């Protein structure tokens, strides 16, 4: 009874937030619910088949793909706005449904696994990101491995070409180890299992302690991050009895097309070295706008910009903006790329003539502002 009342109050709070503050209302609903009923996630998860998606990059798009896949089997609850902390999870579970597909922040996954007891956890990847908050990649990996070892009823599906994912899957009682033929990992110099120098032969790793990406349960051809994530979403779907969807890489990229006074902008989310590097490979045109911010979810520091090679932008017209426009401009300058510095996105996009195509690579907060405006 108390749970039902708490949900009612939480929903009311969401309604007010939507009406008067024009917010999505989900975060506030989850907050209120957890404050009134701290065990809400555990209670609401009972009777639902839960699937969690976590990783540094691709959580939101993969969660969306999984919702599409699972919805053929029955009703699916999810948190569509990418609210991936406990409060977002609680809000997503408030409604009755047979399934719930939840995007979960890397650092919060342990608690969600413990409380929601998911049927399947999909681990995409783990690389350096928001180090002011994550502190160290290894710290997150250790948490994953620990919670995998304490969830014997959960199936862990993941891309073992990523040594940190491989470690987590090795710790799980039930695991489906997927490989895409091996891939170099920027943070993969040290074995996350034993601390030795990790032995790589081309794109594959094999440590003397046993950690390796050899002998996967399923192997696929190499491809883009979007393709890998969609492939794994289909595997999770198949496990639950759903038919696979056709893999449309374009729809799985966090990118949106918008037109500003005739300028055709393809806006893509870039938030850490791995997602920048992936996004830079897609810059095929001659024009680019780069937006760098430094709010909490962007990472409050920009040192990591120096871990990215921007050589791909050489010879193109590059305009920068955002709170840390100078940081990115100087980083490009040292790499031999002279960018035009502007004080806002409006000013940046206005530099281009109507009819031109522009790649916009946007920090997390900038991406959300542009896509929701």
């Amino acid at each position, binding site marked *: 009874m108390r749970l039902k009342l708490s949900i009612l109050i939480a929903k009311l709070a969401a309604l007010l937030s939507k009406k008067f503050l024009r917010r999505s209302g989900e975060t506030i609903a989850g907050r209120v619910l957890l404050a009134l009923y701290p065990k809400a996630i555990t209670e609401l998860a009972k009777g639902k088949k839960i699937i969690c998606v976590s990783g540094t990059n691709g959580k939101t798009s993969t969660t969306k793909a999984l919702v599409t896949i699972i919805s053929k089997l029955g009703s699916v609850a999810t948190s569509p706005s990418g609210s991936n902390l406990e409060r977002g999870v609680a809000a997503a579970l408030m409604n009755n449904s047979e399934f719930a597909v939840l995007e979960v922040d890397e650092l919060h996954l342990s608690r969600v696994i413990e409380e929601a007891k998911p049927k399947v956890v999909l681990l995409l990847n783990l690389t*350096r990101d928001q*180090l*002011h908050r994550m*502190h*160290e*990649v*290894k710290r997150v990996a250790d948490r994953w491995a620990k919670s995998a070892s304490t969830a014997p009823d959960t199936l862990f599906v993941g891309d073992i070409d990523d040594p940190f994912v491989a470690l987590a899957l090795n710790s799980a009682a039930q695991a489906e180890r997927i490989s895409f033929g091996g891939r170099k990992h920027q*943070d993969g*110099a*040290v074995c996350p299992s034993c*601390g*030795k*120098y990790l032995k790589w032969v081309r794109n594959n790793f094999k440590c003397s302690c046993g950690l390796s990406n050899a002998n996967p349960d399923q192997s696929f051809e190499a491809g883009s991050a979007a393709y890998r994530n969609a492939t794994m979403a289909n595997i999770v779907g198949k496990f639950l009895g759903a038919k696979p969807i056709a893999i449309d890489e374009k729809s799985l990229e966090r990118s949106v097309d918008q037109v500003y006074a005739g300028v055709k902008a393809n806006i893509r989310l870039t938030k850490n070295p791995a997602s920048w590097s992936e996004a830079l490979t897609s810059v095929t045109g001659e024009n680019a706008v780069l937006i760098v911010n430094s709010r909490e979810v962007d990472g*409050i*520091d920009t*040192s*990591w*910009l*120096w*871990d990215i090679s921007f050589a791909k932008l050489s010879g193109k017209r590059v305009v920068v903006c955002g709170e840390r426009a*100078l*940081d990115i*401009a*100087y*980083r490009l*300058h*040292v*790499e031999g790329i002279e960018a035009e510095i502007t004080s806002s996105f409006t000013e940046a996009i206005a530099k281009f003539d109507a009819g031109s195509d522009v790649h916009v690579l946007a920090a997390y907060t900038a991406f959300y502002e542009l896509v929701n405006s």
Partner: protein
Amino acid sequence: MSQIRIVRIHNELLGTYGDQGNAEVLEFRAKFHGITANIIDVSYNDDLPTNGDIYLLGGAEDAAQLLSLEALQRGANLETLHFAIERGAVILAVCAGFQIIGNRFVANGQEVDGLGLLDVISIPGDKRLVGDIKTTSTVLGFELTGFENHMGRTILGPTAQAFGKVITGHGNGDSKYDGAVNGNIFGTYMHGPILARNPEFADLLLTRATGRKYAQITDPLALKYATWRRKVI
């Protein structure tokens, strides 16, 4: 000297925080002075080149820090560094790298002997120190800015001098001083990378490495960036 060799030590291990950019900034600033810089990447299994002019170490996670230390203690590597110091080469070590070149430090709960190039010891504190940092350096005579993210508490011995006096942030953990310096050996907790945010420091390292004075560089963007960071932190 119209050529210098910049040795970037164990970037695959000591490259988690953008500090690899220090080598790029040195190379870039060197060009203004008419110096050709070669960046030599040395990985875990390689021997250190004996003819480096500037040796760079960056920040790392604990396991990587221990591996880097082990590699630097292997074969003739430590001897190479001692010899380099004697002939006036520059060493710039950041965060985990700063701890490595000290006398002792703790990583993964294990207390180990460092390389002993700087008279400091580092122990873990009870709280992680994360945020923007600004110091004023007595050695350089100007303000430095950067970003720190570490658990270290570093205590200076009698032959090490503090590198900077903290204005904002925590530095060595006491919120008073950051880093240490002895001759041409510099240790600091400042990421950024430090030479990107403080290009004058890059110039000073080039001067120290070559023994030559250079005319001031005109690079308005570098100046604008450095000045802005000093203003906002």
